[in-house]
């Protein structure tokens, strides 16, 4: 564990930010073309973020400011552990890779809690409603997602992401989205929930609760939240790529898979309306949970893996 490892980690977080921001911009263009529009420039998201950082902002007390920095730090800390391919990984020691799945589960919570703290510190009722909805949505999608991931961990006997990637890349094994089709579908639906894409956009809901947790942010703080959002999207999509799509052996494979997953999620998002919060919870506890449990039973008791 040297300073080089940390530099690589920060590099991965920065790479994730640049990658997700560009792909987000390209996706805005794609959506524009779908709607017969010209669409913005592909680097529009960068302009947006730098503009926000150049603006003046008001503060609502030190919790408000500190929470944003804590959230951003937590998310960057999480992204540092993310492997890009089998080899590109920040922290490893004598063949042991420190990229356990549960690191992400724990560290992502730091970012989310920081944001919740900061949003509640603003004192705006919309922010409280938004935070409450975000936590409820999290509670809804985590259960089916974790059941599927635990099934994968049971099957591969390890919880390291690179380990799971290598298991899928071994001859004779399929990607888990093919090996466990029901689990793959559940994973993708949960990913949509994590990303806050349209059917599960309930906690942002610009027309309903005025963009929820972000309601009081402007200028620099909002810019930091945008960076936070891009990096957390990077983490979530990469998790899906590594867990279900067989990871990547080189960086180009990773880019292609990443782009495909994010664009697909975005396309689905753009033809959907928005659920109410109770519908989100009922939805996740009905079909995805049922499918996840079925998949777990099939894999663990019957051992049927394609």
């Amino acid at each position, binding site marked *: 564990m040297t300073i080089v490892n940390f530099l690589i980690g920060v590099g991965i977080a920065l790479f994730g930010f640049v990658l997700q921001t560009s792909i987000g911009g390209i996706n805005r263009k794609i959506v*524009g073309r779908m709607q017969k529009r010209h669409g913005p*420039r592909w680097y*529009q998201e960068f302009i947006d973020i730098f503009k926000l950082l150049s603006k003046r*902002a008001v503060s609502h007390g030190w919790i408000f400011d500190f929470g944003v920095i804590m959230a951003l730090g937590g998310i960057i800390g999480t992204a540092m552990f993310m492997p890009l391919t089998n080899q590109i990984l920040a922290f490893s020691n004598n063949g042991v890779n420190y990229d356990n799945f549960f690191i992400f589960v724990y560290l992502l919570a730091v970012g989310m809690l920081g944001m919740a703290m900061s949003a509640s510190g603003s004192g705006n009722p919309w922010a409280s409603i938004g935070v409450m909805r975000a936590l409820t949505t999290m509670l809804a999608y985590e259960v089916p997602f974790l059941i599927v991931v635990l099934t994968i961990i049971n099957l591969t006997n390890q919880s390291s992401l690179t380990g799971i990637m290598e298991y899928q890349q071994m001859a004779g094994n399929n990607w888990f989205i093919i090996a466990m089709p029901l689990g793959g579908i559940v994973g993708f639906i949960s990913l949509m929930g994590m990303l806050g894409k349209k059917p599960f956009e309930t906690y942002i809901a610009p027309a309903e609760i005025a*963009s929820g947790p*972000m309601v009081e942010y402007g200028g620099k703080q909002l810019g930091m939240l945008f960076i936070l959002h891009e990096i957390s999207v990077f983490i979530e999509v990469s998790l899906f790529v590594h867990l279900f799509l067989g990871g990547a052996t080189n960086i180009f494979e990773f880019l292609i898979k990443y782009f495909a997953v994010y664009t697909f999620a975005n396309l689905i998002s753009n033809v959907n309306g928005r659920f109410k919060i109770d519908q989100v919870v009922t939805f996740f506890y009905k079909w995805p949970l049922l499918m996840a449990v079925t998949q777990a039973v099939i894999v663990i008791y019957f051992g049927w893996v394609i």
Partner: protein
Amino acid sequence: MLSTKFTPKNKMTKAEIDRKWWEVGDYFRRNSLWLLMYCTGCCAVELPPSMTSAYDMERLGMGPMATPRQADILLVSGYLSLKTLRRLIYTYEQMSEPKYVVALGSCPINGGIYHDSHAVINQLDQYIPVDVYVAGCMPNPESVLNGFVDLMEGIKQKTMNGWKRYHDHFEWYKENQKNSLGEVIVHDEFHQ
């Protein structure tokens, strides 16, 4: 071989450095203008065509935003009654700087067809600084977009400094607001 001769450069003063940074910021600001739509008047009906595929505002980097804190442009679409003006001033003061005001239609310019109404103000720039007026009743989407392009050019030429004017002439604006509105504080029995 590198020259070892030390050549003293012309050092920039702090004001010049600030100006340079401001120009860099201006590039980002004029290419990413987020709107806060204050849709009280009839001119709001011209916004859907200018936002959707017919004229596509997003290609200029513009888009609607949900709250005043996030927005750059306060878009006043149409007439303003006293009651809405009170909320408008409240909203304007909440926005983070630099902020711009675009007023659509003839009502904010000189009262329009409501020039003799007891409830509608005649001239918006007496109360808050307006950067761009788009005349017309109602202005068509081309003129609306033209107004935004003018705003962008103005940001580039550093002429759109209404928010600075609001700081400099704060007393004058407040006095005008008080003369017309009585008091600017919003009293609302449903939100107290």
